[in-house]
């Protein structure tokens, strides 16, 4: 009986999948489920909560700081992702050419991504310092400005400063992944296009871009996910200040849940991020499905 079952492909398959399934269940599903559940309770640190339904979310919707954090997060993600994509793609195209010291340059480009975020964040913290900023110092010495720039003290300036730090850190990831994608495109396609008299722009638009789409979709999904859930940069550079103008959902969630002890509320903020993340994943999934377009057809 047992041996018959063990010879059954379906039973065996299920059996072999069990360890992986258990791992996923314990380390992914359970924490996610617990986090979501906490978001619907009034759990405090050191005290289990009771179910309060949508209370947390109702409060958060009316909470100015949370709304500001939501706005900041979306703004941060959109601006940083677009710039990272544009610059990353540009860098990838450059790196795809025959440069001298090709592998060396490619390795160098990865550096910002390799350096631990906390470290690069500290460097940026100094770069943006109100009193010791190297940028302000240089500009002063050159006589361009007469007062140190208050990078992190003025809300909009602080937003753009942190976005710049995020872009610096995120470009290599986008660039290297897109470079890998570029290298899978057969040179013969470009040759054929050139023979047909295609301009460089046309070659990019009708050969490179369609063939790169699947990679772009995956890379940008990850990029958006990383940016949307960014924590370290903000936590080190501004702690969400000044006047909460750089608080992201992730940093606010930590501040409320861990420092502030309102586990339920913090979890609710984190849970509120999920729909946005799901939307990002769905967009990329949809993008990946656009195979017909890559084959030269049109979407139905």
């Amino acid at each position, binding site marked *: 009986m047992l041996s018959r079952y063990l010879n059954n492909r379906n039973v065996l398959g299920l059996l072999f999948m069990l360890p992986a399934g258990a791992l996923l269940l314990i380390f992914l599903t359970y924490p996610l489920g617990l986090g979501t559940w906490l978001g619907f309770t009034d759990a405090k640190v*050191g005290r289990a909560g009771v179910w309060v339904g949508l209370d947390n979310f109702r*409060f958060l919707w009316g909470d100015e700081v949370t709304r500001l954090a939501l706005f900041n997060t979306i703004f941060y993600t959109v601006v940083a992702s677009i710039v990272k994509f544009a610059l990353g793609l540009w860098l990838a195209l450059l790196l795809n050419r025959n440069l001298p010291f090709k592998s060396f340059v490619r390795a160098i480009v990865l550096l910002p991504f390799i350096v631990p975020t906390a470290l690069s964040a500290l460097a940026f913290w100094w770069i*943006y310092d109100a009193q010791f900023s190297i940028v302000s110092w240089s500009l002063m010495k050159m006589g361009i400005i007469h007062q140190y720039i208050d990078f992190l003290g003025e809300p909009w300036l602080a937003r753009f400063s942190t976005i710049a730090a995020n872009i610096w850190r995120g470009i290599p990831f986008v660039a290297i992944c897109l470079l890998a994608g570029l290298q899978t495109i057969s040179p013969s396609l470009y040759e054929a296009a050139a023979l047909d008299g295609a301009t460089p722009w046309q070659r990019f638009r009708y050969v490179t871009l369609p063939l790169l789409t699947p990679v772009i979709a995956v890379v940008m999904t990850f990029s958006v996910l990383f940016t949307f859930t960014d924590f370290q940069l903000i936590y080190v550079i*501004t*702690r969400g200040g000044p006047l*909460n103008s750089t608080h992201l959902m992730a940093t606010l969630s930590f501040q409320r849940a861990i*420092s502030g002890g309102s586990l339920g509320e913090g979890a609710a903020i984190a849970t509120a991020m999920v729909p946005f993340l799901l939307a990002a994943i769905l967009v990329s999934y949809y993008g990946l499905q656009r195979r017909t377009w890559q084959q030269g057809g049109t979407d139905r």
Partner: protein
Amino acid sequence: MSKFSRRDFLKTTASAAAAGTLGAGSAMWSENALAQSKWAPEKGATLRVLRWKRFVQGDEDQWLANTKKFTEKTGIPVRVDSEGWEDVRPKAAVAANVGSGPDIIISTFEDAHQYPDKLADVTDVCNYLGGKYGGWYDVCKDYCMEKGKWIAVPMGCAGNAIVHRIGAMKEAGFSEFPKDLAGFLKLAQAYKAKGIPPGFALGNATGDGNVWCHWLVWSHGGKMVDTKGNVVIASPETEAALNYGKQLYETFIQGTLSWLDPNNNKAFLDGQIGMTANGISIYYAAKNSPDAKIKAMAEDIGHANFPVGPIGRTTELNLFFPMMLFKYSKYPNAAKAYLAFMMEKEQYEPWQAASIGYVSHPLKAYEQSPLWKSEPKNLPYSNSMKIMLPNGYSGPMGYASAATMADFIMVNMVAEAVSGSKTPKEAMERAKARAERYYKV
């Protein structure tokens, strides 16, 4: 009785000890021995202690040396781990939540009130220490007592005081540091005129930002909540504080809106600011600097307690440290013996001296510590526990007061109002709405 404390008794009889009567020395030792037997350690006891990571090296070295001494005396091995002070709080919370972790956690502020039912009753330890060392300062009871029971042993606080340049102050015509708000503002303006403006953190700086913003509001009579926990921050007193803060802010160096805890240290030591609020660490860093220029600055550094506002009493906030013994500990007696041992004069005074007074004592008898006499400049820090108010002032302590401070409601309100991004009225209303959420629960 209160006038003539036990401590005084011990002091006056100290000379008699030499004459062969039952003197202070022997009395203390016999009491010490009693203390050891009072909490007979469990068999095979071991202890784990989690504390905040030192701000000055001497602190950690001496704390570990004292711990070693305890192990030698009692045979109880003690492991001491340290974490950045802001990380201890969440760790303590998790330990409380899951019911396992270090036996003793030395955390910050009102942690003991966040999970009082998870903490062991340490009334015996506190009564013993309080009785022996002249009693605890009032604020200790706010932080560590619940329903008449001690739920944590006060370790002290990291005092925060005004750090300023003496030379420039004298040049501006101040013979001593002003004790009232009008004089304080004038001094700030004088520093600005001298090209070394004041700088107080207004970013989400957990330590420095909270400290001075609470002082600002409290000194004018404003407060987050009344004794019943009703949010009363939107008041004429708070408005007066914010208007005063606005005038003060005009004298600040630029960029304070983004300042986190380390910014003022850096700017002060670089000679860019003439006045800030900080722990003793700026002076310590200057004094021990290998750079001759910075070392010379130490001479010129003065310390002072914050000025007193119309409310007529000191209203400072300092980083308080409770030592919590968790109920889940398998060796509560050993832990109590350890706590008592570390707070005894033989251990506490050398430790306080090694940390150059970074930690201000919770027991009144330690006012007489040689440390405070050896360096007059340290004196303002010796008052820290005596003159402070608890962060949840004047309401109940616990989850709401912790969350309110962690959410930077006071700091944000002050920053919004003084920088002019909101009117004082708007800033107060916003703070009220935010705080009410926490105090409603």
